[in-house]
Structure formats: structure tokens, C-alpha cells
């Protein structure tokens, strides 16, 4: 028996006509939802999936685990560039990955949300961050020109 670290075996049981449906317990596949680079139709979500997954796998995964109604799934493999070279002039390979375009059923739409909105952060009282912010503010204040001159630059004497 193989001492593999994760469940999804390197060898699934052989399928012959009449065999029971293959079931995978505790799948070892992790999907990454990505913001599409090119404009996609409103019902399409773009995922990066492991190379070993197929369209059926993606459909079942999303339906069973995330309860997302999936219509069609299209996949492609993105070649990771092997052009860049490091300081030793050796070629550095960016890993290849598979991309899945999942169209949602039942007229659902999906837009990739903005996960990093600007938030006003006031540092806690008496903390190091507050002191740093205060110090930076003071420095900026020092750089400003003299307000009593009414916007006139220092070039004009007096």
C-alpha cells in the first residue's frame, strides 16, 4: 500500500461497465476564485484549479461542497513562462495552472467584489502606531510653507 500523504490516490480503481460510481472522500483539491483578466459575461466565474481536475470534477465539487448551481464548465491550461532568468542566468519556470470558466445556472450572476476597500484606520490610544502617525503628521506640517505669507513662495524676498 502506498504511504501517500493525501487521499486522492494516484490510481483510482479501474472502471469497467457496471462498476459503481467513483466516490472521492475528503478531496484534496483547492480552488482559487480569481478576478478575470478579460471581461467575462455576468454569469461566469473564473477559477484556478489543480491540473488533475476535470470539468465534471469542478461541477460536482461546486455543486456538492458549495451548493452552487453550475451550468457549463470550460477549462484551459495556462502555460507558466520559462523565459525569465535569475542572477545565475538559469531559466526560472513559473508554474503552469489550469483555469476553469464556470457558468452559473438558474440565471445567477456573479461579480468579483472589491476585497480591499479603503478603511479609515485610527490607531488605538497610547499605542506605538498612534505615536508614529502623530510624528509623521508633525513632519508633514513642518514641510508646509509659512501660512502667514498667504500662498506666496519664498522666492519673493520679504
Amino acid at each position, binding site marked *: 500500500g*502506498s504511504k501517500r500523504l493525501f487521499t486522492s490516490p494516484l490510481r483510482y480503481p479501474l472502471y469497467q461497465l457496471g462498476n459503481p460510481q467513483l466516490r472521492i472522500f*475528503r478531496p484534496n483539491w*483547492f480552488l482559487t476564485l480569481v478576478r478575470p483578466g478579460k471581461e467575462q459575461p455576468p454569469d461566469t466565474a473564473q477559477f484556478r484549479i489543480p491540473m488533475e481536475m476535470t470539468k465534471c470534477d469542478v461541477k460536482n465539487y461546486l455543486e456538492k*461542497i458549495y451548493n452552487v448551481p453550475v451550468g457549463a464548465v470550460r477549462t484551459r491550461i495556462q502555460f507558466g513562462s520559462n523565459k525569465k532568468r535569475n542572477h545565475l542566468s538559469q531559466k526560472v519556470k513559473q508554474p503552469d495552472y489550469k483555469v476553469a470558466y464556470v457558468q452559473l445556472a438558474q440565471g445567477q450572476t456573479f461579480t468579483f467584489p472589491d*476585497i480591499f476597500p479603503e478603511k479609515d484606520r485610527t490607531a488605538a490610544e497610547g499605542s506605538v502606531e498612534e505615536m508614529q502617525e502623530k510624528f509623521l503628521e508633525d513632519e508633514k506640517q513642518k514641510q508646509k510653507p509659512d501660512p502667514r505669507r498667504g500662498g506666496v513662495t519664498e522666492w519673493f524676498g520679504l
Partner: protein
Amino acid sequence: MAASSSAGRVLTLCKQFQNVLRISSAINTPHCAANFTKYQPHVYRGKSPLAALSWSTPTSYLGQCRALHTTISRRGLEEFFDLPENWGETSVKSGAPWTAKQLRTKSNEDLHKLWYVLLKEKNMLLTLEQEAKRQRVQMPSPERLRKVERSIIRLETVVTERETALRLLQTGQEKGRPGDWRKNTFGYVYWYRFKEYAIPWYMNKRYKRKKFYTPKFVEPHIRLRLEKHIREKARKASLKKKTLAKLMEKFPQMKVSAP
């Protein structure tokens, strides 16, 4: 845990459930999830799969339980993202990863559900990581990803332990996949793992091309290889002895550990 409601079962997945089960108004928001179905262990995001730090005071379990009404959470693709309150934060609190010792105390159903909780958490963190790279912003608390990975690995080891134990008891086999010790063409003996075929081996052309024996003409090469290996070992041992002798000459009072 007779007193636990269905939401209580949700909370059993979190690390310190014995100490900190407290249903308060702060936690009981519309996001509460319950009602485990077989493959959809939706967990209220606030109770992260890791030990929650937000419960500061442990309360007695049985005394403070309230009957809780919860609905199945059908949030779909929202589960690829964190709670909306955490968007834009620079750091998100998270607890310790699961240890193998803790996981061994859990039942198989709980472990199965925990696997999916961890899977969803990892998916969420991976989407966050990729989006942070895209927006050229630092990912908040990247150590969460490492913690979840470690928890998953430990869960896997615990499950395989249980599987091997069961297999040993039921069939007496240590390994799930059958195999055999075989010699390859280079004279090395290795553990060959069997593969499932639809036809017997004598009809399998590719299998018959594989040689599980060493031909006669390879034997002199094996002998040379052996000689090389022995020579290297002898060289290493003599080097060790020489360095030790040199040191003893320089530092006669040096204490040497017995080999």
C-alpha cells in the same frame, strides 16, 4: 452532549468547545449556520475552524446554552470570501491549528465535516492571496494559510492511522495497495506496487517488456558499484578517525563520546 442544539454541533468543531460555548447576541447574527447535510458543513464564519480568540471568558457549558433557531446557509460563491467586516483589514485574528492529539479525540463524522470546513477555509485564503497579489496589496495574516495546511496534514495522518488499524484488524494487511519486493534490471531490489489492469499480465505487452530480473552482463557492473560504495564508506570512516586523532593530539583532555 445531549444539551447541544444543532448549532452546538457546529461549534463542537472548534477547538475549545468545552470551555467556550456561549451563545450571545453578539454572535447570534443572521449569518448563523446549522443543519449539517452530508457534504455541506457550513460553519458560521465568525467561529473560524481554528481556535477562536474572540471568546475570552470560558463559561460553563450546560448552564448558558440557549435554544437557537438557525437556517441552512446557502451562500454559494460568497464562501470564497471572508466576512465582509474583515475586508480591508490589515490583520485578522485566528486561533491555533488543530493538533493530531486533539484530532484523535474526534469521531469520524466530525473529522469528515472538519475536512470540508478546512477545505473551504483554505479556498477562501487562496482566493484572498491571489487577489492581494493582483491588487499589489499585502495579504492580511498569511499565517492562517500555513495553519490550515498543517491542520489538514494532521487530519490526514489521523485518518490514515485509523484506516490502517482497521485494515490490520479486519484483514491483517498493513498496506492498502498490494505490492511485492522485486529486482529491477540494475540489481536494485525495490517495493513494486501493483496496478489494476483489465487483462492478465501475460496479455499485457507493455508489462512484459519490463524486466524484473538482472541480466548476466549487468553483474560485473554491480560488483564495481559495490566496490565503489565500500571504498567510499572506508574513506569516510578513515577521515573521521584521522580528524579525531588530530584533535586528541591538540586537546588531550578532550572527552570523546563512545561510538
